[in-house]
């Protein structure tokens, strides 16, 4: 059997790494990381070695020998045999995914590193390492960034995640600007880079360098490939810098919408590069094609979106497969668009954005959580894999380094971007109400990162038509590296330096909601008085259309008539109630607590936090709380009725969600129970730790025999963490931290922490305390945190 053992180098290197003294925790993390890398690196050549191309001959020989041998001698029955081929492909895929995930884990064990270097850079480095290891082991690097794999498997999850959670309002408000940047900006970039490259190549002095071979059309093709801002890279970097919403949506929207331009230019130039010339007719057709690609893509996406929304209307009896509809319809939208060479990305975005408000009104709470988590998970893994593969593909080559070409490309890209942005902003500002400042322009220009899409497009090029494909690839990779490493690493300090406005984390208050709606109506009225059919007029018309016809079709039951303000209000009440429960109803505990001398001391502590929201909520009159509960109960009862139809063997109804109404009642009973309890020991049933940890809440209730009327699985109660992760409690991710913090604080607070149920600041609290950590966790560790809630609160169409 031709399984080559990896050379001893990894293990010796490991030995060399082990220092004599015991390293502190972060260094240990780094060590672990290196170990993992080497381990993975050593197993992968194993896989590569046994790939059919390499070992086919050997294996067939073995096979023949085995067969021959079988006829003559009776071999002993193989008790244990190794058959790698059987599982090779899925095994290697899983290995790569595992590597990606472990890398992600590893990075966050090393806090300093992840603060300085964006994740994307680290992942590329890891990819380089792994690729290097594979090469060292002497094996052929698998062609991992195969274009089909990339476009069909790796890219869609990221785009769907972006599209589904796209903040519609800022997107629509800035649509004109975004389109200008995406269409005109990309065109400008493509022609500028392509044209000037051609010029430079022509005037390249001296020896008949290969550059002279380069014609105009391949240059323009190269220009169009390299000029597109990449959504994956932009997302990866911008996620970590928390810039204000406007800039984020501008750069990100641009990266999404320029796909249509890229697709058209790419196909146009690729088609005609063989022919060698482009006529005016072709240009005209190209423009038409662009419109078809863009509008067609959006239409396809919208159709699938509506289908998905319509389907979700009927899923009340099969809640389990609700998320599946969302995913499958979206993926089919992408594939359908790709089938017609329309813009798959735009189709996916349209599908996600269109279906979201209706689907969310129809599906259960848990399905919503599932969708959110799955999307974040897949997009996270995809992104990681893409960057690692970029690294591996860099090592593999094929490379053709040409100093002139590469340096000129890099410089031209930068210059083109800056000129493009400045020029366009000058024009755009004439039409904008809120103008873009120089700082904004700088960030937009600087945030134009290139990424894996450019590489994959380059990879797709046919070597026969484009003899200089290798040179192109090298240049593309260099530009990608430059933008991701240099721009990616420096953008964060630059943002700090320039004091660019950051993202505002706070939640929307009901006042904001009421007043914004009011202002919408006001502006619409004023526009009507002026006789001007403006922005607000059309928005209002669309809303009315939506309310009257579309919602009735696509949303099941009574929710179709629910005004947006009410929906928002209910959501807030839910959140507040959940927080009330989590705080153990602590605020309502009477001061006549038995033997709680410490309680008396602690009581005054709760008053200082002077946040008005907190105070407001902590001083809720009793009748008010009852009201909240009543509203909640009526809502939850409806929900519960729908949930009861679960099949017994599909999912256990989560006691937490179903029993929330009961929970509240039980809570009150418990409070009364506590009054009667004299013994401090029975505080097991009383919040013994900081009351804001959901696990604790669960554990408490689990220990109370009266808490449940239904019988949950004993081990599922404290450990279901995903279900708990309602959009309202970002704590779920920081559970372990909460736990630790809980233990630490236990001493100081002596059992019962009278922290007021900070309504508004509750979800913010973990955010404030380990702010940067929370933010970093946003995409990486799957819980989007409070900021995602803002997106949810803002509907597509009110």
């Amino acid at each position: 059997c031709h399984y080559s053992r990896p050379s001893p180098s990894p293990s010796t290197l490991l030995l060399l790494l082990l220092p004599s003294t015991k390293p502190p925790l972060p260094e240990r993390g780094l060590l672990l990381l290196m170990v993992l890398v080497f381990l993975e690196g050593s197993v992968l050549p194993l896989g590569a070695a046994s790939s059919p191309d390499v070992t086919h001959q050997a294996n067939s020989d073995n096979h023949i020998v085995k067969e021959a041998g079988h006829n003559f001698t009776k071999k002993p029955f193989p008790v244990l045999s190794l058959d790698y081929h059987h599982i090779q492909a899925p095994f290697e895929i899983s290995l790569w995914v595992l590597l990606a995930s472990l890398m992600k884990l590893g990075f966050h064990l090393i806090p300093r590193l992840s603060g300085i270097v964006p994740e994307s850079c680290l992942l590329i480095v890891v990819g380089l390492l792994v690729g290097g290891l594979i090469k060292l082991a002497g094996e052929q690097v698998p062609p991992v960034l195969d274009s089909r794999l990339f476009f069909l498997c790796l890219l869609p999850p990221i785009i769907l995640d972006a599209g589904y959670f796209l903040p519609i309002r800022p997107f629509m408000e800035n649509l004109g600007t975004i389109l200008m940047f995406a269409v005109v900006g990309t065109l400008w970039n493509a022609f500028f880079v392509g044209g000037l490259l051609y010029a430079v190549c022509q005037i390249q002095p001296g020896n008949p360098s290969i550059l002279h071979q380069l014609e105009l059309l391949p240059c323009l093709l190269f220009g169009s490939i390299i000029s597109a801002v990449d959504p994956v890279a932009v997302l990866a970097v911008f996620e970590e810098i928390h810039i204000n919403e406007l800039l984020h949506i501008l750069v990100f929207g641009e990266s999404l919408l320029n796909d249509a331009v890229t697709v058209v230019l790419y196909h146009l130039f690729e088609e005609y590069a063989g022919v060698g010339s482009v006529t005016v007719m072709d240009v005209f057709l190209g423009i038409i094609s662009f419109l078809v690609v863009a509008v067609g893509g959006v239409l396809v996406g919208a159709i699938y979106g509506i289908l998905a929304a319509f389907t979700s209307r009927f899923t009340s009896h099969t809640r389990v497969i609700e998320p599946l509809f969302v995913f499958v319809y979206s993926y089919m939208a992408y594939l359908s668009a790709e089938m017609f060479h329309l813009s798959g990305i735009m189709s996916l975005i349209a599908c996600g954005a269109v279906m979201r408000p209706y689907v969310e009104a129809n599906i259960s709470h848990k399905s919503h959580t599932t969708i959110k988590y799955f999307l974040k998970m897949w997009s996270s893994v995809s992104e990681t894999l893409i960057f690692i593969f970029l690294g591996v593909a860099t090592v593999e080559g094929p490379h053709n380094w040409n100093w002139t070409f590469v340096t000129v490309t890099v410089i031209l890209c930068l210059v083109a971007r800056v000129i493009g942005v400045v020029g366009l902003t000058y024009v755009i500002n004439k039409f904008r109400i809120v103008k873009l400042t120089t700082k904004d322009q700088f960030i937009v220009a600087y945030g134009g990162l290139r990424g894996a899409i450019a590489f994959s497009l380059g990879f797709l090029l046919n070597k026969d038509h484009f003899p200089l494909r290798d040179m192109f690839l090298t240049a593309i990779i260099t530009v990608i590296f430059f933008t991701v490493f240099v721009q990616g690493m420096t953008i964060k300090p630059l943002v700090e330096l320039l004091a660019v406005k950051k993202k505002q984390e706070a939640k929307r208050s009901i006042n904001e909601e009421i007043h914004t709606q009011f202002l919408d109506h006001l502006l619409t009225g004023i526009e009507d008085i002026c006789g001007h059919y403006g922005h607000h007029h059309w928005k209002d018309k669309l809303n009315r259309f939506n309310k009257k016809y579309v919602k009735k079709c696509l949303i099941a039951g009574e929710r179709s008539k629910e005004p947006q303000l009410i929906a928002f209000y209910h959501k807030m009440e839910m959140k507040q109630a959940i927080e009330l429960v989590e705080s153990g109803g602590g605020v309502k505990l009477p001061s006549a607590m038995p033997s709680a001398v410490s309680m008396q001391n602690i009581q005054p502590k709760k008053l200082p936090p002077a946040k008005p929201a907190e105070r407001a909520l902590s001083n809720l009159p009793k009748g008010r709380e009852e009201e909240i509960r009543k509203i909640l109960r009526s809502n939850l009862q409806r929900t519960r009725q729908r949930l009861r139809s679960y099949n017994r063997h599909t999912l256990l109804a989560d006691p937490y969600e179903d029993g929330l109404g009961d929970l509240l009642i039980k809570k009150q009973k418990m409070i009364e129970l506590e009054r009667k309890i004299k013994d401090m020991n029975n505080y097991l049933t009383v919040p013994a730790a900081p009351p804001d940890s959901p696990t604790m809440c669960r554990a408490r209730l689990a220990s109370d025999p009266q808490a449940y009327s239904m019988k949950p699985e004993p081990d599922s109660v404290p450990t279901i963490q995903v279900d708990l992760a309602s959009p309202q409690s970002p704590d779920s991710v920081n559970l372990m931290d909460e736990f630790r913090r809980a233990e630490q604080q236990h001493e100081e607070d002596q059992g019962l922490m009278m922290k007021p149920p900070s309504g508004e600041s509750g979800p913010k609290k973990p955010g404030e305390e380990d702010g940067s950590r929370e933010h970093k966790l946003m995409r990486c560790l799957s819980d989007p945190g409070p900021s995602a809630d803002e997106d949810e609160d803002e509907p597509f169409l009110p």
Partner: protein
Amino acid sequence: MGSSNSSVNNIPNAQELMQETGFSAAHILRLHERFEFLDKHKCGQLRPQDFGAVQELALNPIGDSIISAFFSPGQETVDFASFVRILAHFRPTDRNQSRDGAQQEPANSSIRKLKFAFQMYDQDRDGKISRAELLQVLRAMLGIQVTEEQLQSIAERAIQEADLDRDDAISFDEFRKSLEKVDIDHKMSIRFLR
């Protein structure tokens, strides 16, 4: 049609209005045309009924409030100058506006915009939005789909959230504070009035 300037001069106090509100001559002209369109009886003043010519206002939940905002308290008619002054609130803010010291706050500044919105809530002009006034607005916006109980809850909650000095009403400062995250310059501007 002749030069726009001469038509503008037909409008009384046009120059003064342009100076005060920052509208250009073309805008004043356009608004004047609109004013005349609404003013069916050609008396140079608008009455509340005249606003009925704008059909969309009937569909607007707060249409009545908007109409009454044009009329100063106690007055039954509005002339062109007041019409323009009210609409001046909705001009996009000029960031680089230079003001001489004596000039008062321009009509389209953020504060004035907010004040205008605030006055639409505060019908009795006592400087505070009381619970009843808030309820009225909510009732208008939410219509018949919502029960009285829910309206009360929402109003209660809104006041609790915004009311910092605990006087059970929302003053202008509290109103402003609750809207601090909203970009008023953007939200309350009509592009065509630039």
